[in-house]
């Protein structure tokens, strides 16, 4: 039996498929397509909201099958051996009017020296800088078969992309003698991770209370779950069957 639903596909569109496997294979791939985009919402009296997400979670529930170790998507691993290198950043300015012969040699660090003829006025400035490289996984595996979708901290936090394009979220393998087998993938967000922006309003938000409480009202309205518990489920895809 297949049950799938995207409650607001213009905002979050999730589809899951398990492609046909070869006869000699025991493992199968759960492939996912995920699109998240901000959406517009028109209200009365020229009121206009935009709805977006800054963090979303994909959750996978398995029954009768188990995840294949090492097959989860977006799972960076840390090297067992950790090393720490420290580079001192130094700026040296030298100004000399020494008319004597010879030369000046400044050691900034073992690999960098500054050498100059001091028979004339010497003005030298040297900079040593380091470059930091940061890596961010937009779809990142967490424990308990969860994946968190976020933008890197140095970019606009609103999710607005196709985050998975038929990517294998995880491989699964059947558990021996399990009667019922099912895979369920759901996409949800906590209400604090929803962004409601008043694009057009006849009256601006008077206080932070107005803005935050309105967010709760709209989040609650978005949620298909009864009762609302602060989490909005956008999509649920389930495959279940019996041998």
């Amino acid at each position, binding site marked *: 039996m*297949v*049950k*799938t*639903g*995207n*409650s*607001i*596909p*213009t*905002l979050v569109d999730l*589809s*899951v*498929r*398990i*492609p*046909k*496997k070869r006869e000699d294979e025991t493992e*199968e791939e759960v492939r996912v*397509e995920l699109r998240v985009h901000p*959406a*517009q*919402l028109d*209200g*009365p*009296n020229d*009121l206009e909201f935009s709805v977006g997400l800054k963090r979303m979670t994909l959750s996978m529930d398995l029954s009768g099958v188990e995840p294949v170790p090492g097959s989860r998507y977006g799972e960076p691993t840390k090297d067992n051996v950790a090393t720490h290198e420290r580079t001192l950043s130094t700026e040296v300015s030298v100004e000399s009017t020494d008319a004597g012969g010879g030369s000046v040699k400044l050691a900034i660090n073992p690999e960098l020296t500054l050498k100059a003829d001091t028979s004339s006025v010497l003005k030298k400035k040297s900079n040593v800088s380091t470059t930091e490289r940061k890596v961010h996984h937009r779809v990142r595996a967490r424990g308990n078969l969860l994946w968190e979708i976020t933008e890197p901290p140095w970019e606009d936090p609103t999710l607005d992309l196709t985050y998975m394009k038929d990517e294998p979220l995880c491989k699964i393998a*059947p558990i021996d003698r399990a009667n019922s*087998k099912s*895979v369920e993938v759901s996409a949800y967000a*906590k*209400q*604090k991770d929803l962004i409601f922006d008043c694009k057009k309003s*006849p*009256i601006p*938000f*008077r*206080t*932070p*209370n*107005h803005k*935050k*409480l*309105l*967010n*709760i*009202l*709209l*989040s*609650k*309205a*978005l949620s*298909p779950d009864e009762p*609302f*518990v*602060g*989490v909005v489920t956008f999509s649920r*895809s389930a*495959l279940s*069957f019996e*041998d």
Partner: protein
Amino acid sequence: MNHSSESSPFQDRLCHLKTDESLEERISAATLELAARFLSVEETNFHEQIKFLGLNPKTDFRHADLSYMDFSHSDLRGFDFTGADLRGTIGVNVRWDSTTKLFDAETADSLFAYAIQRQDYFRSNVEQAERVERLATDYWANTIITIATMLESEKDKAASLQIAKAVFEDTKNSTVRFSILMHMGAVTDSREEQKAFIYNLLAKFGDDPSVLRPALSTLRYQYFNDLDAFNMMVKFLDHSDSQVRSAAVSGVLSSSHFFSSLKEVWDPIVTSTNPMARRALVGRVARRELRDSALLLEDDGVVNYVDYREPLTALRLMSMARRSFNRVTRPEADRLGRRLNFDSQVYDSDEEIERARLIRHSLKFIRDKYSIPFQIYDGEFVK
């Protein structure tokens, strides 16, 4: 579903089913109507606001972003804030207890932070909790001496502070409270912990001026860059006690957020009955608008900025002009004149009169831009 002829139960199964529901269908017209009405309602009390929106305290606030909200005069008992972002929340006269669920909530710089920290501390220091209980009910003089000695001692200052704060909360004696606040001021505490304690005081003792005055002064001097501290001080601008109001006005004027929130704070500040607050307002605006020539607006009688409740007569403006030569140099005044389109060429060649006119021009500029009700002499100057 029959899988008997298949080698795998999941063969080439595609789960992709779009519902036809759009955002507009999900969020009903009635909800949007309610949202629009809510925006036009002037009510700022949290309790009344959630009643208006029909929100359920037991479920609707879980995982919500409530940062920097104001819970003043609200009863939060029974609220479930599980996983909520409560950072920077403030409030005066807020009731909450163990039925307020804060599991996994972010509470930094909030009115809840101190109570949570206190609970954690005394849970693992049971003996000290018993000591707090004894001190809070002891004869007041004994309590004051014991806590003062503890705080002045070099031994385990962190523990002494924890005890002092807890006794402050638990005692019913206002003399003990005042004494503890005074002694605590001299003892270093972490910035976050001290602020959390102050927010806790303001939430619990919102009607006690003896607690409010020193608490607001501490916010003013130590947290003038913090938005949550600014929001908290704004709450006291219309307090019934004039000294509390003055402390709040001074704090708001000192804050780096003052000019970005002018609309919200202007009325209570400009109508302040405290002359020091009025002078401080002129000083704040003068430093922003006149920059290095701000002291042109120094009063001719006292070492402070002018009070806009007092008429600025020709005599006073001339006196301010004479006094200003020691404060503002000619090039500085010329720069200001050019910036404010003050045409000195058309005026008298007398330097004092020209300076008096520049002062008047500056006062009028500030009056027109900020609606500060200066009463300014408008005739000719004579020596």
